[in-house]
Structures are given as structure tokens and as C-alpha cells.
């Protein structure tokens, strides 16, 4: 995966698989501190300490279709190669918080990529989950909570052409208007 936003999609899918009801995503590009961070918080089934300590091992996965899980180990390695880190906190039955940080200007840092498409995919593809999304570009913040939209739709599908148009505009324009000028 060559974009951080694809990794973000992958991590968020873990929260979906953990049967989360609410998933909060935060992406921050902090120029002053030269940091790019992404975090995902969910209220899914969580992990016990034994699984948590092994989760960065590629040979640990909850999937049943094959025995190797590569999403988290790859992302952790990518962060550590860029003066960054990955942190995972989890409590069985309560949920999981994952944060990954990079030196934003590091030459090996992957581009953030198409963050709007990642959000659109998550929100439309998982209509039963309550999504909260925050994007911070420098000091400005885009905040999105799908509760009011879903209330308005009253059960109509999110893949309605009008709703897709609304979500796409919200994410694309919202991110573009506050994103720092260029990816270094």
C-alpha cells in the first residue's frame, strides 16, 4: 500500500471487524511540530493483553480465511522508519485505540493520498456504524459526524446519488480547503 490513507482504511476495517458501533478517526498534519498522525478509536470487542502484545506480529490475525495478517505490522514498520511510532491501547469488551505518527517531512514518509475516498468508502460501505471524522490541517479543523445526516435520511441508503454527492463534496472540499500547501 503506497498511501497512508489506504493504511487508514485498513486499520478502520479492523474496527469494523471488531463489531464497533462508533468509530472515530483523526488525521492531523501539524507543520509546526513536523508531525503527521492518524488515529482510530472504536468501541468494538477489544483485545486482551495476550493478543495485544502479539498484534504487531504478522503471524497473528483474527481472520479465519488465512493465517497471516499484514496490515498493522507493515504500518508500524513504516512509521518507525520515519522517526515515528505506533501505539495501540485496548481493553477487552471496551474497544481499541490505535495511533500512528510520522515525521511529516521524512523522505521515506508515504504520501497521505486520497483521504476523501477512504472516508467515503468507510461511511457509505458501513451504514450501520456511527462515523466521526476529524481532519486537522495546521490549526484548522474539519469535523464530520454522520449522525445528523443519518437522522435526516431516516433509513434511506447512503449510496443514493444525492447522498454520495453530498458526502464527496463534504470530504473533498473540506480537506482541500485546509490541507497544508504541499506534501513535502
Amino acid at each position, binding site marked *: *500500500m503506497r498511501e497512508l490513507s*489506504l493504511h487508514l*482504511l*485498513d486499520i478502520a*476495517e479492523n474496527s*469494523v*471487524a471488531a463489531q464497533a458501533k462508533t468509530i472515530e478517526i483523526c488525521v492531523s498534519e501539524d507543520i509546526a511540530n513536523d508531525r503527521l498522525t492518524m488515529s482510530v478509536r472504536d468501541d468494538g470487542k477489544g483485545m486482551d493483553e495476550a493478543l495485544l502484545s502479539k498484534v504487531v506480529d504478522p503471524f497473528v490475525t483474527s*481472520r479465519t*480465511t*488465512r493465517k497471516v*495478517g*499484514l*496490515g498493522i505490522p507493515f504500518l508500524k514498520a513504516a512509521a518507525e522508519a520515519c522517526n515515528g511510532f505506533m501505539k495501540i491501547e485496548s481493553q477487552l469488551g471496551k474497544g481499541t485505540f490505535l495511533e500512528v505518527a510520522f515525521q511529516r517531512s521524512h523522505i521515506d514518509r508515504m504520501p497521505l493520498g*486520497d483521504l476523501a*475516498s*477512504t472516508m*467515503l*468508502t468507510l461511511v*457509505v*460501505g*458501513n*451504514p450501520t456504524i456511527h462515523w466521526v471524522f476529524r481532519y486537522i490541517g495546521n490549526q484548522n479543523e474539519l469535523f464530520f459526524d454522520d449522525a*445528523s*445526516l443519518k437522522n*435526516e*435520511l431516516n433509513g*434511506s*441508503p447512503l*449510496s*443514493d*446519488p*444525492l*447522498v*454520495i*454527492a*453530498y458526502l*464527496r*463534496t463534504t470530504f473533498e472540499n473540506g480537506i482541500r480547503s485546509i490541507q497544508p500547501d504541499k506534501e513535502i
Partner: protein
Amino acid sequence: MPAIKSLADLKKVREEALEKRRVKTASGQTNIIVGMGTCGIAAGARDAMKAILETIQNENLEGIVVTQTGCVGLCEKEPIVQIATGDQPKVTYGKVTPEIARQILKDHVQNGHIVKEFQVQM
């Protein structure tokens, strides 16, 4: 299609959209499922999803529900897209690029012809 920039705009067009949907639903709703496991994402599932949503938006296709699922165990065939219309059996497509996704929407979803070329057996 009117531009939608706020929830208020969305409210205005919602009634009209609901009416159109009622007509369409009578002929059977179409479900599109995109595989979004690590394998799918790495193979380009997000691009396939994006192409599907763009086509629905641009062609103003009503009565389609797009959802996603995790790894279905056919990692080498990802990105995988499944189509289920009304009570017909589910059709599975493999190695779906954005271009193939657009073709599936046009031929299969809109015109009812299965695109055999890209179909895979589960």
C-alpha cells in the same frame, strides 16, 4: 442534478428522491458488495469502490445499496465485487479495476447482462 452543499439542500431534494426510489424498489433492489479486507485494499478495492460510487452519482442510479465486507478468502482474485439483484443468485466478479467496475454497472446493474469475462466462481 442540483448541487448539494448542506444538509438543508439535502432535505429539499429528499422527498423527490424518495418518490423515485419507491418506483425503482418495486422492480427489485440491487446490492453491490465490495471486498475491503487488507488483501482487497492492497489490490485496489478502494479505487473500485470509488468508481462504483462515481458512476451511481454521475448516472443518477437509484435503488442501489453499496456495502463492503472483509476478506472472503479469494485474496488472489481481489478486488472482488458482488452483485445481487432482487432474488437472483449473487454474481461474483474478480480483479475489478475502476474500468471493469464501470462496465459491470452499465452491463449488469443497468441492463441485466452478466459480464461473464470477469466473473469468478466462489
